[in-house]
């Protein structure tokens, strides 16, 4: 089965052809972003006069640097908070078998089913009353709470499969529960923490609906909302829009290709978690 046969070669060529189809939009994206607006030939013909002009224009006019910084801030803060509180909460939820623990866990799991559309409108009003609308902190608060059910679910599943002996030993050695968690449990949670980090970071970074609601009209937009605003402003100037799209994709793809093993395992890790 592992030998390379003529049929394997046919499969190889078929898969490469599929990859070319998948990659076709990326080629057009790069081609249009790199050609001057005066070039109106077919979008699939490689441009004869590539330029970086669209990129400099898009960067300056779209305030994309600020949007990038906001996205990094919101993602880093939200993910750090949600991982910390969820790992801590998962510890008693996974270890205590009393009734209050089991019913609390079910309540948290209910959050997996509730779509955020239901909560986002009443929460919009609360954020407005608290004066948080238009600030990145509204988003940090939102994601820190929204991602709790899924992250707790990952941690509890992982913790239940871990033996308790180390924690018990730590207690006997005189650790407080918090010390036991910090020095004994937390290090053992590293694999599931990587999975949770990857999945949460991608979810928060890519979110569009919430920042569209909570940041509309503010000058502290995240990347997805800044891109939507940019498209709305330069409606038909597709060369400029494509340059902005490339700028927003590049940091994501850079991180992806650098950490591809960790990221792909993170996405596949939901299976084992």
């Amino acid at each position, binding site marked *: 089965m592992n030998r390379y046969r003529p049929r394997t070669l046919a499969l190889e060529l078929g898969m490469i052809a599929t990859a070319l189809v998948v990659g076709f939009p990326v080629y057009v994206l790069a081609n249009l972003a790199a050609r001057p607006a005066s070039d109106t030939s077919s979008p*699939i013909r490689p441009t004869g006069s590539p330029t970086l002009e669209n990129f400099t224009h898009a960067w300056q006019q779209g305030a994309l640097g600020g949007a990038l910084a906001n996205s990094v801030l919101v993602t880093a803060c939200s993910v750090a908070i949600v991982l910390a509180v969820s790992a801590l909460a998962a510890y008693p939820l996974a270890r205590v078998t009393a009734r209050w623990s089991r019913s609390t866990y079910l309540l948290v799991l209910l959050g997996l089913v509730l*779509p955020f559309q239901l909560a986002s409108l009443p929460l919009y009003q609360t954020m407005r009353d608290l004066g948080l609308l238009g600030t990145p902190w509204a988003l940090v608060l939102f994601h820190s709470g929204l991602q709790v059910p899924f992250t707790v679910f990952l941690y509890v599943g992982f913790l239940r499969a871990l033996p308790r002996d180390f924690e*018990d030993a730590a207690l006997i050695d005189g650790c407080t529960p918090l010390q036991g968690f910090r020095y004994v449990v937390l290090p053992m949670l590293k694999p599931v923490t990587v999975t949770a980090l990857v999945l949460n970071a991608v979810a928060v970074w890519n979110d569009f609906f919430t920042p569209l609601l909570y940041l509309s009209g503010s000058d502290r937009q995240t990347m*997805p909302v800044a891109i939507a605003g940019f498209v709305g402003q330069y409606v038909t100037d597709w060369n400029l829009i494509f340059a902005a799209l490339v700028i927003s994709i590049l940091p994501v793809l850079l991180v992806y290709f650098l950490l591809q093993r960790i990221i792909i395992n993170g996405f596949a890790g939901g299976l084992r978690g």
Partner: protein
Amino acid sequence: MTLASPARRARTTPPWWFMAPALLLFAFVVLVPSARGVYYAFTDWDGLDPHHSFVGLGNFADMVRDADAVQAIWHTLVIAVSITLVQNAVGLLLALGVNSAIKSRNVLRVFLFAPAVVTPIVTAYLWRNLLGPDGAVNSLFGAVGLDSWRQDWLGSADLALWAVVAVIVWQFAGYSMVIFLAGLQSVPQEVHEAAALDGAGPVRRFWSVTRPLLAPAFTINLMLSIIGGIKLFDQVYALTGGGPGHATDTLSTLIYKDAFTLGEFGYSIALAVVLTIIVAVASTGQYAVLSRSERAAS
């Protein structure tokens, strides 16, 4: 050794207050607003005025009469089911291809998964141009002599919904692939060899050996795609804005429009309640069916 038994009985019981920060955030962001949402669904709240009156089932009765809402619910279901079927079929084929002896398998795996990490709103704007009347898709058909295939993909009420489905499959088939691949790699090589020795061909081996062991991967993939499809907002917003007319409006785009362009928060939240019910029914129904087949497989 005599110390072992008292040690084993000294269980660490982590204190309940470890849960407090997570529960507070969860209650503030999800539980309390969701409960308030359910309440507002029975009012005529406009989102600004704290005064509102109770209208009973009025919003839901309006919904039944509202052709746009009925259509949006239908589109939501069509999109969720089509994405679930097509994305997982393509993802499974890609996973089988990448799990074979081909030399490019590692590069292809990384490459084919890449679209799944890119921001959906960004890829949707890219496709809005590609699928336009003078876009790259039509140019490509023209270049290979298929001029009759050229269409205004997003401007046609018959095609736009399928164009949205195609864009999502393009982006997330690699995601399904990665999850199926993890399942495939958990199938021990010896089991395959044993089945081959017993005279089972490749199709038979897939059906009788691989498929049952893929059950957990199927559960996760179907869950992710059906719930993602039901909640779909970003791609429709960027590709068609729900148009042409209301041909691609989903529950989520209608919720957004009713609340933020029409100011009908009460009605909009009633739509969100319907969305919640659909998600709950789909996920519990699917969970029940799939966990039964998972048990049957093991």
